């Protein structure tokens, strides 16, 4: 993903200036047309730069039956963000389809046909909004042309309405179904011929519906999977039902990198229903998406397989794990805290931060810790694989179908064409299901059972003990204030193992894509800034967790900015607005970020005005500055991530006994143009709850390389009583900027806002997550 500054600068034609120079209302349309000039292979940014790029051929995505049923293909993974509804709705709106006559079809893994399918990085809508609108507009034009041909009139005299094409002059009309067959025969119109609908012609895109801040304003157009979900018919990974299925579970090494020394399977094979015990080769470190190794038990049902696994006697070779076998997270935290006291690799600097710190009237210093966490989607990893006649077929809940397909092909030494991956619904993903290791395991087991489907199920214990863990982090910050309490200097050292250690020898330093998640993109206007990244070795299998390194960076920076405000004796909001400085666009390259979530920094700079706007909105809605009374307080945090802007204010109360009540959350969010505001709200609400868990409860610790938590009785995640009863989401109406991400940017500011509120209520500063029992008096 890394690009040199030179290449990046070459691409700096001022597209954004072009966008801004035109009337705001047409920005969406123009933005929709921007990609037209860029062939996929030439694109350096955005959808076109992703593997497989974008596709906007209507014949790939839209099919209309002669009875009028419109089938729209969704090529992205549905994991709760609502993309199957939202993206299909975008196409249906542009096409003019009657929503009651629309169904979604899930694409198999086929990047050549469907373009990029890697559902990750909060990219689905921002990368596919334009291609899907173009595909639908092309289909609409083909229907209009078919009608014009039928009536023998010029195409400009006919117009598509809702599910029909009308010739006003003669009063004739034909339904989409009646036109479908002849429309299919037509050539796909060139992109130049497409005119996207104006905002006033749209029925769904950008329109508020459903439950808005506790009130049901209007009916929500029915969710694609809504009825299947509430009736139990929705098909998730484990719900795939094939004849003659065998069920498998795997006993994996307790320590990352350990191997099987010996296995006694005699008792396991005596368990009723157990058919076979198979050793699974591990691929060592780095593991990437490969199996961790261990021993698989195959049985006639899941329970028998689990009972068989319980009866295995395995001796593990821990020495094979090297240093990992000694990994203890408490000791590791201490080692990082110590390392944070010394300078590290310089990532960004302006001015002389050391001299400014020396000269400061007052210095503020703090160290923050965020622990390992497991994504723990409610559906544990599971996959079905069948190998037959030299071909493999998989059914799996995966965020990255392409990597799944390539992985299976590699493992089984098959051509990519001989591997089919069917995408099921995901019972939550959060980054865990970006890694298809569990499908590789199923493929490995299926190799032993020609023609027979293998359903490989992870237990919750498997999921929490063998997650791709969110890496621990230590962030050490120091700032100088002048006599007026104004910041003169800022030094931030960030320490975490790099996710690159999953794929290559451990680099011991964060990569560009990790630093670019809120560390070097920190937008404060301070005369002297020094950002450093001391080394931190990796010991466990780490990987993406929803919003990734934005979590520790936002947690530390937003907590520290509050500590600075307190030290300066200033109101937190006033202080951070001053820290942000004047409204301006910070070009990512000027702060050393050549990544920018893969987006063009001209289109997506760090926009301080947008940051300020969400802070102002959240604080106003929360009644910032009001008298809260003893034991109660408001806390603020904000963050820019996945090219969107979020601010959140919590209103909390802490009793004398240390019991926390979260009265309310006010979330202001700016993602630029909103495709489906209803699902944006639900993502913000969900992020708020997940973030509360990150702040208060969730932690995986390690002793001698072994995860100490293994299920929801020890790895805690929020329950209904933990959620604030009042969550208000305030969407910023901003059609003029480029579209941003939604699934992840709500999460990073939650934990620091909550901890800042706890400080406001109690005077107790939290610097180590989770809060756990730190409030108990």
């Amino acid at each position: 993903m890394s690009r040199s500054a030179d290449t990046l600068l070459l691409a700096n034609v001022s597209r954004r200036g072009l966008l801004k120079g035109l009337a705001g209302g047409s920005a969406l349309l123009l933005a929709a047309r921007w990609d037209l000039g860029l062939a996929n292979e030439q694109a350096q940014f955005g959808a076109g730069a992703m593997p497989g790029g974008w596709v906007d051929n209507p014949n790939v995505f839209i099919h209309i039956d002669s009875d009028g049923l419109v089938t729209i293909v969704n090529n992205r993974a549905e994991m709760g963000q609502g993309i199957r509804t939202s993206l299909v709705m975008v196409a249906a709106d542009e096409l003019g389809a009657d929503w009651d006559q629309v169904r979604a079809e899930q694409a198999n893994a086929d990047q050549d046909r469907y373009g990029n399918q890697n559902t990750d990085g909060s990219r689905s809508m921002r990368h596919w909004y334009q291609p899907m609108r173009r595909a639908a507009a092309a289909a609409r034009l083909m229907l209009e042309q078919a009608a014009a041909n039928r009536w023998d009139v010029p195409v400009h005299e006919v117009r598509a309405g809702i599910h029909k094409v009308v010739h006003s002059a003669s009063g004739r009309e034909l339904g989409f179904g009646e036109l479908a067959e002849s429309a299919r025969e037509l050539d796909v119109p060139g992109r130049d011929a497409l005119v996207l609908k104006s905002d006033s012609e749209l029925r769904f895109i950008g329109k508020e519906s459903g439950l808005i801040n506790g009130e049901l304003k209007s009916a929500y157009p029915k969710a694609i999977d809504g009825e299947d979900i509430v009736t139990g018919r929705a098909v998730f990974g484990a719900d795939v039902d094939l004849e003659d299925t065998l069920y498998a579970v795997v006993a994996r090494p307790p320590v990352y990198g350990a191997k099987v020394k010996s296995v006694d399977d005699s008792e396991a094979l005596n368990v009723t229903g157990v058919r076979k015990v198979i050793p699974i080769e591990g691929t060592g470190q780095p593991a990437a998406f490969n199996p961790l190794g261990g021993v698989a038990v195959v049985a006639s049902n899941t329970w028998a397989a689990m009972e068989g696994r319980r009866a295995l006697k395995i001796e593990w070779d821990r020495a094979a794990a090297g240093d990992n076998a000694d990994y203890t997270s408490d000791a590791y935290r201490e080692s990082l805290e110590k390392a944070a006291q010394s300078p590290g690799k310089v990532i960004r600097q302006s001015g002389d931060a050391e001299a400014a710190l020396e000269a400061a009237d007052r210095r503020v210093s703090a160290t923050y810790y965020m622990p390992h966490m497991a994504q723990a989607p409610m559906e544990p990893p599971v996959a079905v694989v069948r190998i037959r006649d030299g071909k493999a077929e998989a059914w799996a809940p995966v965020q990255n179908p392409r990597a799944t397909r390539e992985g299976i092909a590699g493992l089984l030494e098959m051509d990519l064409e001989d591997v089919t991956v069917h995408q099921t619904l995901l019972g939550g993903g959060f980054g865990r299901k970006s890694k298809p290791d569990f499908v590789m395991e199923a493929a490995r087991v299926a190799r032993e059972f020609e023609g027979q489907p293998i359903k490989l199920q992870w237990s919750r214990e498997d999921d929490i003990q063998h997650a791709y863990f969110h890496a621990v982090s230590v962030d050490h910050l120091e700032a100088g204030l002048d006599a007026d309490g104004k910041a003169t200097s800022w030094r931030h050292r960030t320490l975490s193992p790099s996710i690159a250690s999953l794929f290559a020898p451990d680099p011991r330093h964060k990569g560009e894509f990790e630093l670019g998640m809120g560390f070097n993109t920190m937008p404060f206007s301070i005369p002297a800034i020094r950002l450093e990244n001391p080394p931190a070795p990796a010991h466990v299998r780490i990987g993406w967790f929803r919003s990734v390194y934005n979590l520790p960076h936002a947690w530390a920076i937003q907590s520290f900015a509050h500590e600075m405000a307190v030290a300066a004796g200033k109101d937190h909001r006033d202080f951070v607005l001053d820290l942000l400085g004047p409204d301006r666009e910070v070009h990512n390259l000027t702060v050393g970020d050549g990544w920018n979530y893969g987006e063009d920094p001209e289109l997506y700079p760090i926009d301080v005005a947008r940051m300020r706007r969400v802070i102002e909105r959240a604080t106003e809605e929360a009644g910032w500055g009001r008298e809260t009374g003893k034991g109660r307080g408001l806390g603020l945090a904000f963050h820019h991530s996945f090219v969107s802007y979020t601010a959140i204010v919590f209103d909390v109360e802490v009793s004398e006994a240390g019991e926390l009540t979260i009265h309310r959350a006010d979330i202001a969010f700016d993602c630029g143009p909103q495709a489906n505001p209803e699902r944006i709200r639900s993502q913000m609400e969900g992020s708020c709850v997940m973030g509360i868990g990150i702040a208060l409860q969730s932690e995986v610790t390690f002793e001698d390389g072994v995860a100490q938590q293994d299920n929801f009785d020890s790895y805690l995640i929020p329950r209904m009583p933990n959620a604030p009863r009042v969550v208000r989401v305030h969407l910023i109406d901003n059609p003029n900027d480029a579209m941003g991400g939604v699934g992840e940017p709500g999460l990073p500011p939650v934990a620091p806002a909550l901890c800042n509120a706890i400080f406001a209520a109690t005077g107790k500063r939290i610097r180590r997550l989770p809060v756990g029992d730190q409030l108990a008096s």
Partner: protein
Amino acid sequence: MVTLTINGSEHELDVPDNMPLLWALRDVAGLKGTKFGCGIAECGACTVHLDGEATRSCVTPVSAVQGRQVTTIEAMADDAVGQRVQQAWLDLGVAQCGYCQGGQIMNATALLKRTPRPDTREIVDAMAGNLCRCGTYNRILAAIERAAGKEVSS
């Protein structure tokens, strides 16, 4: 061989007595609406009704349910209260990924049968055992209130 009454029909299942009802339903009876989430009665994804009571099928051996009425999410559309709960779920767009929602609906339906007009505290207490990693709790709460015939609170 055990005989279970599931959604009003008798099923003869060739399973050991100690097999949890969850796996008998999913792998043997072919009813996949009841989900596996934790296996230790901590998450509620596997919630079914046993003689009308919300029960965690992942820790309930089939031997304990012989002769009793097992009701699963697949039968909720035929239940007057279940249907109201499902409709409220759809009206308020509760589900995100949806994996836990069958269990949530089973628990909510059992609650409303027991307590037709629960107050907020009663709902929160009753639903505390059902995890949702997507964080849809406030919509679940609002949907239960709606199904109970209350105004959606704001």
